[in-house]
C-alpha cells in the first residue's frame, strides 16, 4: 500500500462508499462476535467457574467473606524439612535438602463456615511453601483415598444431586442413585471413600493430593506422581467427637499444638506412577506397591484462627507450582484453579465475619 493524501473521497461513487461502509461494519461485527464467542456469551449453557461457585452458594447459602467450599478452617504454620530424597525426581528447590517455611490451613469440606464438626466430614490440609526467589508451591489435599468425580461436569452434577432436599434436609436418594448410575466411576470411588478408616483428628490424618502431577528433574526427565502427607507416628483410629462440641476437631488440634507444645509431624510421601497408571482420573487409585519417596518432614508448630493466621486471604490454588512441578492431564486441576480463583475474588471483596474457630480471643463460636 502506498501513501495517498490526495483526498479522493469525492471520486468514489456513492454505491462504492456504501459498500465499503458495509464492509467496515461487517468487520466490526465479526470481531465483536468472535470476542463474545471467546467469552462464552454465545454458549449460555456451558459450565463456567462462576456457575460452579454459584451452585455452592445456592446449596449452602452465601456466607460473606468465607470460602465457598471448605469454609470452616484454621491457619497453621511450620516448616518443611526436605530430606533431599525427591531432588532426583524434581528440580524444585523445595526438594533440595534443607528447610522451607510453610503456612497452611486445616478445614472441613462443605460450604458452611459454622457447621458443627462431624467425624465423617472430609478433612483437608492446604499448604503453601514459600521458596526462594518469589516462587511458591501451593497444594490442597484431602483425607480421602480418591476423589469422588473425574471431570468438572461430573463435579457439578454431583453437587446438585447431593444438595439437601428442602423437605427432608437430606440428599434425595433417587437423585443420588441416578447420578451414580450415570457415573459408575463415582460409585466405585465413593465406595472406597466410605470404606476409609476415619482417624481421631487432623493431627493423625493422612492427606492426599488426589490429582496426579508431573515432576521434572534437572535433566528434564518427567515422572507422574501423586503425593500425601502421612502422620508421624502413624495416626490413631478415631472416635466420634462429643455431640455437644461443635468445634471439637479444631480445638483438639489447637490444644495439642499450641497449649501442649507438641508440634504435629507428617512425612511428605511422593508416589511415582508407572506408565500405565491413570493421571487423568482422580477417581482411580494407583495400584499398591508403587515406588514411594520420602521427601521430608512437615512440621506444624503453630495453629491460629483464620483472620489472625492470614490464611483466609490466600488462594490455595493447586496449580500454583514452582519450576519442577507441573500439572498432569487431569481435567480437574485446571477446573479447581478456575473455580478457586472465582471463589477467592468474590470473598475477598466481601465484608469479613468472625470465623467459627479463633485463637486470639481464645474463643470459639
Amino acid at each position, binding site marked *: *500500500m502506498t501513501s495517498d493524501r490526495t483526498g479522493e473521497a469525492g471520486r468514489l461513487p456513492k454505491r462504492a462508499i456504501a459498500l465499503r*461502509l458495509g464492509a467496515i461494519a461487517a468487520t466490526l461485527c465479526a470481531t465483536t462476535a468472535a470476542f463474545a464467542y471467546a467469552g*462464552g456469551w454465545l454458549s449460555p449453557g456451558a*459450565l463456567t467457574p462462576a456457575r460452579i461457585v454459584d451452585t455452592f452458594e445456592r446449596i449452602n447459602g452465601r456466607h460473606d467473606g468465607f470460602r465457598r467450599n471448605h469454609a470452616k478452617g484454621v491457619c497453621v504454620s511450620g516448616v518443611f524439612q526436605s530430606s533431599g530424597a525427591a531432588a532426583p525426581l524434581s528440580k524444585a528447590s523445595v526438594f533440595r535438602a534443607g528447610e522451607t517455611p510453610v503456612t497452611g490451613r486445616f478445614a472441613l469440606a462443605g460450604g458452611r463456615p459454622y457447621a458443627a464438626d462431624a467425624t465423617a466430614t472430609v478433612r483437608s490440609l492446604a499448604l503453601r511453601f514459600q521458596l526462594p526467589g518469589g516462587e511458591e508451591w501451593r497444594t490442597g489435599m484431602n483425607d480421602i483415598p480418591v476423589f469422588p468425580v473425574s471431570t468438572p461436569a461430573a463435579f457439578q452434577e454431583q453437587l446438585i444431586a447431593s444438595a439437601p432436599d428442602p423437605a427432608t434436609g437430606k440428599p434425595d436418594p433417587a437423585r443420588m442413585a441416578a447420578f451414580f448410575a450415570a457415573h459408575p466411576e463415582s460409585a466405585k470411588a465413593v465406595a472406597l471413600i466410605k470404606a476409609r478408616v476415619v482417624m481421631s483428628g487432623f493431627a493423625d490424618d493422612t492427606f492426599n493430593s488426589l490429582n496426579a502431577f508431573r515432576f521434572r528433574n534437572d535433566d528434564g526427565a518427567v515422572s507422574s506422581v501423586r503425593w500425601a502427607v502421612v502422620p508421624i507416628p502413624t495416626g490413631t483410629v478415631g472416635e466420634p467427637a462429643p455431640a455437644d462440641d461443635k468445634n471439637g476437631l479444631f480445638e483438639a488440634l489447637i490444644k495439642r499444638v499450641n497449649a501442649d507444645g507438641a508440634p504435629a509431624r507428617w512425612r511428605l510421601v511422593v508416589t511415582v506412577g508407572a506408565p500405565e497408571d491413570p493421571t487423568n482420573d482422580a477417581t482411580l487409585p494407583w495400584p499398591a506397591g508403587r515406588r514411594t519417596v520420602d521427601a521430608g518432614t512437615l512440621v506444624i508448630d503453630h495453629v491460629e484462627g483464620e483472620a489472625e493466621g492470614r490464611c483466609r*486471604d490466600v*488462594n490455595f490454588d493447586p496449580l500454583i507450582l514452582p519450576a519442577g512441578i507441573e500439572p498432569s492431564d487431569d481435567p480437574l*486441576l485446571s*477446573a479447581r484453579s478456575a473455580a478457586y480463583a472465582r471463589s477467592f*475474588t468474590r470473598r*475477598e471483596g466481601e465484608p469479613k465475619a468472625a470465623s467459627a474457630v479463633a485463637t486470639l480471643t481464645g474463643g470459639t463460636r
Partner: protein
Amino acid sequence: MTRPVVFTLASRILHWTMAALIIAMLFIGVAMVASLSNYHRLVSIHQPIGIAILALAAIRLINRLFNPPPPLPADMPRLQKLAAKASHVALYGLMFALPLVGWAMLSAGDYPIDLFGSWALPRLLSPDPMLHAWLRRVHGVLAYGLFAAFLLHLAAALLHGLILRDGVFGSMATLSFRRRVPQNSRS
C-alpha cells in the same frame, strides 16, 4: 521538498507486534475467565504476555519521543483530529494500565507473579483482600474499555483506508522502508 508520510520502520514493527499481542490478550483474557478446562493454560500465557506488553509499551513511548508520528492531513476537521488524539491517549494509557493493574491485583491477592520457569516478579503491593477484589474488577472494566478502544481504532483505520483514502491508513500499514517520500512522487 520532503515530508514524513509514513511511520518509521521501528514504529511500525512496534505497532504491529503490539497489535497482535494485545488482540491475543483480549481474547485470552475474556476466554479464560469463562473456561474451566483451559483456564490454567490461558492464565499461564496471560501473565508473561501482559508483562511483555508493559515492556513494549515503555519502549514504544520512548520510540515515539524520538520518532514522532507523521502529521495528520492538514485538511482534517479539528474535531476529527481531537478524536484521533484522544483515542491514542486512551490506547497508550490502557497499554500501561492493564498490565500494571493486573500485576498489582495479583500482588494484593498474595499470588506469586510467575513468568517463565523459576522467574517470578516482585510484588507491587502488600496483600490486601478488598484491594485485590477492587483491582480485579478494574482490570475487567479496563479490558472491555481496551476492546472498545481497539474497535474504534480499527473502524477509524478502515475508514481512512477505504473511504477517506487520505494516506493515514497507509502511514502505518505499509511495507515501505522509506521514511520520507518526495512530495512530487505522490499521485
